[in-house]
């Protein structure tokens, strides 16, 4: 039988979410001949429908269902109901991502061993090593068409990169390039090359950027083994008396409650919704939520140590023209405690359009200090810093039972406080980013606070021992053998690198594992 599948078909793998994790897993399983139903909360858009306007696009794509925040992070003050800037649509946040595709470094899989005990940090080594993951990294890079791998040339540098590169070299950085990007620098895999449109965050209208929406899901659907149901919001994962997952309850596009049976359930709703779904699935047998015998579901929420530096020059830059993030300095990414912190960070070119610059440059700011910076918009260059933040048990996603969503379910509350290490690293990065720009004549540099989180990680983390985390090295929950986690919430620690390539590599590896176990009939 081929897609669409029956609600009572209990031989299907049900995946919750269609982003980098869920969309890749579903497609890979379908290519292997396994029947898959992906339930996606958001709508399905065509790339032609994406909008080159920041606020209109935000309304089209962003996840704006009610959420709450707490903690000392500035996002709580300025954007109390928008902890994360992620997507609710088929393709998930792979529609919005900038395309930076970096492997984690070897030591970043072993932070507890490498960094040692750090007060307040719940560090843990991953149950896998870089070597374990390398074959799937290689497969992911080929599949996504990552530049500077597989003989694919790098992207050309735009104006923002020119300033960034000149400044970086001037202060002595060596590892400066337009990076490894899952954006075609030449036609590949039936997709054309980058047209330097800008608006990478608003959904790529040319198809040069890899996303599960355009590059994976259609391939999976072509096999007849994959069905994607948009506007299907999963409420609960159900299980039988033996504790095995049996399917999910969801509300469909017409507002009707449905029950899809399943042989296997994989959760890939990003690091806020995934733990929320496990917690909202609590039952008599699992009163603290599914897969939560460790009490770690929702804990260790990481968002990367981020921030931006924008600088104003005395001549035009037009930073918004062209690829949003094709530019990277990697010299600070390594492990070197002489800087006063553990872990490392990347600096990457970034630009915002005028409307989002107004919202994010200094949220809440006003008066001439703010507006004179905005007046310099056309002369501005910008970079984003992304570094490893420390997992902390108290940084966590919990259910806010006092606030209900449109379906009457408790919303997620996201609590976050910076660790002292995060603060030290951010200060260092602000200083270095500023030095880069001042070296090439910046008249004013602005250390810009973190935006609502785009890299949400760690809330269902991988661990060797069941007591330390939620899933094992295959993303299989320690407690329920046919329940998997397939998104960035699996990350044991965050590394300094943009997470999507690792999410895709883990999904491809998980697909191989699931297929193997299914044929062995162990699940």
């Amino acid at each position, binding site marked *: 039988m081929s897609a669409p599948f029956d609600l009572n078909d209990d031989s299907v793998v049900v995946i919750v979410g269609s982003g980098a994790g869920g969309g890749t897993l579903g497609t890979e399983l379908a290519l292997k001949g396994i029947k898959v139903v992906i339930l996606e909360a958001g709508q399905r858009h065509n790339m032609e429908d994406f909008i*080159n*306007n*920041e*606020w209109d696009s935000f309304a089209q794509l962003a996840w704006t269902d009610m959420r709450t925040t707490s903690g000392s992070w500035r996002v709580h003050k300025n954007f109390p109901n928008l902890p994360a800037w992620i997507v609710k649509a088929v393709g998930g946040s792979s529609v919005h991502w900038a395309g930076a595709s970096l492997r984690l470094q070897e030591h970043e899989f072993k932070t507890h061993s490498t960094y040692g005990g750090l007060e307040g940090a719940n560090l843990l080594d991953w149950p896998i090593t870089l070597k374990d993951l390398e074959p799937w990294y290689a497969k992911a890079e080929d599949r996504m068409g990552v530049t500077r791998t597989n003989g694919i040339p790098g992207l*050309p*540098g*735009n*104006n923002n*990169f*020119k*300033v960034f590169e*000149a400044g970086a070299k001037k202060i002595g950085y060596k590892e400066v390039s337009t990076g490894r990007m899952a954006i075609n620098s030449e036609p590949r895999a039936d997709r054309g090359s*980058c*047209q*330097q*449109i*800008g*608006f990478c965050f608003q959904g790529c*209208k*040319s198809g040069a950027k890899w996303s599960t929406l355009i590059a994976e899901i259609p391939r999976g659907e072509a096999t007849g083994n994959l069905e994607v149901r948009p506007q299907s919001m999963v409420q609960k994962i159900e299980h039988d008396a033996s504790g095995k997952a049996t399917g999910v309850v969801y509300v469909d596009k017409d507002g009707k409650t449905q029950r899809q049976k399943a042989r296997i359930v994989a959760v890939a709703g990003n690091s806020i919704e995934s733990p929320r779904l496990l917690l909202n699935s609590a039952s008599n047998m699992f009163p603290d939520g599914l897969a939560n015998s460790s009490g770690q579901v929702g804990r260790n929420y990481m968002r990367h140590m981020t921030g931006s530096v924008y600088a104003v020059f005395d*001549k*035009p*830059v*037009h930073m*918004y*023209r*062209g*690829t949003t993030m094709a530019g990277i300095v990697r010299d600070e990414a390594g492990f070197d405690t002489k800087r006063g912190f553990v872990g490392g960070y990347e600096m990457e070119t970034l630009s915002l*359009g*005028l*409307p989002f*610059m*107004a*919202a994010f440059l200094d949220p*809440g700011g*006003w*008066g*001439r200090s*703010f*507006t004179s910076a*905005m*007046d310099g*918009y*056309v002369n501005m260059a910008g970079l984003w810093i992304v570094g490893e933040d420390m997992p902390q048990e108290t940084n966590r996603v919990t259910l806010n039972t006092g606030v209900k969503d449109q379906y009457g379910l408790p919303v997620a509350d996201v609590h976050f406080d910076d660790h002292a290490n995060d603060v030290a690293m951010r200060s260092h990065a602000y200083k270095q980013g500023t030095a880069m720009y001042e070296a*090439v004549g910046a008249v004013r540099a602005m250390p810009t606070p973190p935006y609502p989180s785009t890299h949400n990680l760690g809330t269902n983390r991988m661990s060797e021992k069941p007591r330390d985390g939620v899933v094992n090295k295959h993303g299989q929950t320690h407690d329920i053998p046919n329940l998997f986690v397939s998104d960035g919430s699996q990350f044991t620690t965050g590394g300094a690198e943009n997470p999507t390539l690792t999410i895709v590599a883990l999904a491809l590896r998980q697909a191989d594992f699931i297929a193997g176990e299914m044929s062995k009939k162990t699940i």
Partner: protein
Amino acid sequence: MPTLIDRRGPSRRAVLGGIGAAGALMVSGAAVLNPREAWGLEVSALKPETMRTLIVMARDIYPHDRVPDRFYAIAVKPYEAAAAKDPATKTLIEEGVVTLDTLAKAKHGTAYADLGWEDQRVAVVKQIEGGAFFEKVRSGLVVGLYNQEEVWPIFGYEGSSADKGGYIDRGFNDLAWL
């Protein structure tokens, strides 16, 4: 300017009446007029003096000397409709403006919008910073002012690009001053 009423050729008296810090903004009947920019904005839910004050306040919060008044007027114009629909919003705004004027008069003997120097007005606004009225106006301006496509060219922002073929042949790497 479909959102503002076009009032070309205002009376000489109205033009001459345009004194004070509100610059070219004046109240005539139920409208705020800007003869220099040749527009007017009629209100019914809010007092015209209130709308004039909101326009002045908008510029004091986000002062851009190259941005004409009409864009600030467009940015705060939605409060007229909001006040018409919701009495609580109307009260918040009318009372907020009364507070601004009371504070200005206590210090300078003049209504807020008629204070001659931006610094004087900003000092008054600082006294209500963080309050509900201030935050409503400020946060509304972030989108209401900076998301007007007609404003973007003043800042050198070119807006949508896919419809023009991206920047691959339009200067994505044309920077030559380094």
